[in-house]
């Protein structure tokens, strides 16, 4: 019982992180039908950027744990800013020139960009060939509850992770449905040409999309850092795949889908590791099996727009 609850919590935390990243995937896909493979790396870079903010920007005196109320926001800012710049630069330099190119071109480019980013950090961030320790710049508390004879633990950072991811999704959703730019986004996603006729500037909208996606990824980077307390060049790919899977599972293009997909994957990973044959060594397999099953019976994903036949 305690174990189940514990694993549920673990799943939710992991899910929250994945959801934050998945939002970026899903928004970009929704608007330019591009699977931005490099998005996972943006998240990774966000993590390193916030770490750099801590160790190179933050004055010595504020690095002790007591100053986290100053440090954390600063780090989050650093991470988000760099991630945004990166994401936008990516769009501008790598993807925009391929706007009308064959569908495969941007996809391969994305793969290339992700390799470049990962390598750049590995080569040029001091000590990044191995995982780099990350300060827990937040309430370093573990809350424990007795449950039966087992105890359930949830860390402050874990709570923060869940809260932020859900808040982020809600804010994003409202922004997209309520605000003017949000409407522009949806319009562009629906039909770029018409949107242009309606006076929407597609390029601006697309840049905005990448900006939001990047910001969320950067934020995820910080949260990941303070929660896991180290950051590594490999995480980009790993969580990128998770998030990508989550986005597809939920139906690429749908905010709700991304979030639910994210949590679903988090839960499957932990629960399958706990209760399914093969245990933790096959959790990845279970995730993918579920994905395939869902796609076979519902090709557009759980909340995706159904495909239309043209004739």
């Amino acid at each position, binding site marked *: 019982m305690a174990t189940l609850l514990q694993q549920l919590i673990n799943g939710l935390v992991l899910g929250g992180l994945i959801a934050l990243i998945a939002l970026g995937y899903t928004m970009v896909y929704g608007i330019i039908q591009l699977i931005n493979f490099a998005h996972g790396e943006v998240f990774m870079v966000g993590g390193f950027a916030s770490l750099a903010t801590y160790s190179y920007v933050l004055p010595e005196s504020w690095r002790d744990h007591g100053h986290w109320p100053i440090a954390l926001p600063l780090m989050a800012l650093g991470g988000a800013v760099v991630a945004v710049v990166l994401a936008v630069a990516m769009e501008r330099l790598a993807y925009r020139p391929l706007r*009308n190119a*064959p*569908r*495969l071109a941007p996809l391969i480019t994305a793969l*290339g*960009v992700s390799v470049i980013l990962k390598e750049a950090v590995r080569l040029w961030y001091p000590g990044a060939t191995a995982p780099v320790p990350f300060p827990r710049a937040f309430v370093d508390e573990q809350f424990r509850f007795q449950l039966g004879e087992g105890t359930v633990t949830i860390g402050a950072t874990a709570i923060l992770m869940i809260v932020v991811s859900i808040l982020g999704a809600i804010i994003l959703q409202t922004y997209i449905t309520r605000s003017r730019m949000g409407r522009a986004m949806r319009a562009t996603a629906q039909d770029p040409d018409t949107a242009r006729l309606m006076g929407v500037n597609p390029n601006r909208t697309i840049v905005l999309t990448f900006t939001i996606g990047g910001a969320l990824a950067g934020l995820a980077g910080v949260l990941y850092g303070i929660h896991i307390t180290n950051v590594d060049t490999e995480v980009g790919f790993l969580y990128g*795949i998770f998030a990508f899977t989550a986005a597809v599972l939920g139906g690429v293009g749908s905010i709700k889908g991304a979030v639910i997909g994210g949590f679903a994957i988090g839960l499957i990973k932990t629960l399958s590791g706990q209760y399914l044959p093969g245990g933790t060594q*096959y959790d990845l397999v279970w995730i*993918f099996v579920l994905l395939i099953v869902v796609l076979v019976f519902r090709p557009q994903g759980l909340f995706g727009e159904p495909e239309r036949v*043209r004739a």
Partner: protein
Amino acid sequence: MSKPTNSVTGSVAIPPGLARPLGIGGGVLAILGALLPWVTFLLNDGAYPDKATLQFFDAPYAVSGFRLHVLLLGVVAIVAHFIPVPLRRVLRALGWGLIGVAAVNIVFPLVDGGGFGAITSDGTNFAFGGIVSLIAGIALVLAAKTGPLEPVPQWKTSVPTLVAYAVLVVSFVALLLVVAMMLNAGGQGGVGNPYAGPIFLSLLAFLAGVLGALHGIGLTGWISGLSDKHKWFSVIVLVLVALALPFTEAGTDYWMTTAANIGVYAATAIGLNIVVGLAGLLDLGYVAFLGIGAFVAANFSGAAAAAFDIELPFVVAAIIAAVVAGIFGAVVGSPTLRVRGDYLAIVTLAFGEIFKKAAQNNIGGLTGGANAIPNVPPINWFGASFDESLTIGSLELPSGVLYYVLIIVLVALVMVVFANLKNSRIGRAWIAIREDEDAARAMGIKTGQAKILAFLIGATLAGLAGAVFAHKTSTVAYDSFQFIESVTLLAAVILGGMGSIPGAVLGAALLLVLPEKLREFSDYRLMLFGLALVLIMRFRPQGLVPDRHRRAELADEGADGVPIEELNVHDTPGDEKAVTR
């Protein structure tokens, strides 16, 4: 969006009047640059090659290596002005070649030696060869920009068969020699020759320039036209030429091994080319089929760790491997009945990861798990163990040559399969699906069957390659089949040209040879790989040897520098219409 500098429109900014001065001046400068010293002092790793560290006009007849290349480029550039050729095309090619050579030989001393002193002046010695040559190259490129590019002249391909044969033989042999030269550029590198990397790169730039020029005057087009006309003859000659490689300077154990690995990847890439290039189905987990083939073969090889201790003859094992891989291919392909376009990417990626996990956890005791299946014996036919060296009469052939021969045969076979399928009812069906799935169905094509067939056949070929892989590598471990390998395979297909028959082979060759030649920079291997992917997609998404259809499209433009707008090829997999939205 910045267009590539050399776009069709030529972006005429330079007054035509300057054409000759720039062109001829550039040529002269190049000759001068070749004779000037390039490096002022000895670098830490010893003297820079080709006596680059010399005084002005030393030993002009001993000018060798990259300096000779620069000299030649310059001379040709001048000559080109006085003979009837599409001048601007030729100059553009030569110019870029020069820039390439110069850049490589400037940058390397710069970073390896000591700053600008190394390539300009260290007070006592002066060495402006590099900079002069660079300027020369730029001048040529500018000269090419003084007007729109001329169309590539079409030479008539209706020549007497014998002549055609002669031309083909000559050009293929030349190709062989060039390849051997490239492979051997800078020797085996390593501590023996610290400058192997730059030597190779600058040779590459030189060859690119020459090739561009030859294309500009329509020679390459003519030859490929001829080989299209005499397809079978070309194939035979090509195979023979390939088999002749061990007799060249590149006939070392090292290159035999590498070439065999290239062959394995090439065969696999061709299989992938059926799936991606013809049927237009993206697969990001393809290396799994290579792995399946390898594991099957390893288990029937009589290796100590094999699951079944029966040793089947290689051919039998290979066939079983191919069949098993094929079956898995059909399974992986089955979701394509429902899943379309990009969604397929993640599904195939998932299958790839599942395979890796399964192999790592020694599923069913078939993969040896983390301990892999070591000591897979080499193939052994009629007492000839394939990893031994071979002596025919007097001359001793490098060890691994038999694997090389085997792989050449395999690749040739696979290419024939691909070609036959491509120009058949099935092939047309695949292309139709790639082009417009709904229309294809409206033409009575059972798209589901066709797609699964594509996966099945593709995977079969990969499995076949896997069987060779197992014996060649002598160990089969799950970590040989990571995601990055799938990406490499995909890159090979794209780089070569989707759906084109020689493409995949060329792509695989480049992607495996470059890291080998540039081992000095192995820290940056992946970085460069990523950059390559991005740049190819930006400037040459149709690949190096585009499929006939695409070539037809680009005939007027020629091989190089097509701005993406022009390349808006709708016939590429995953193009909007492949997925109905």
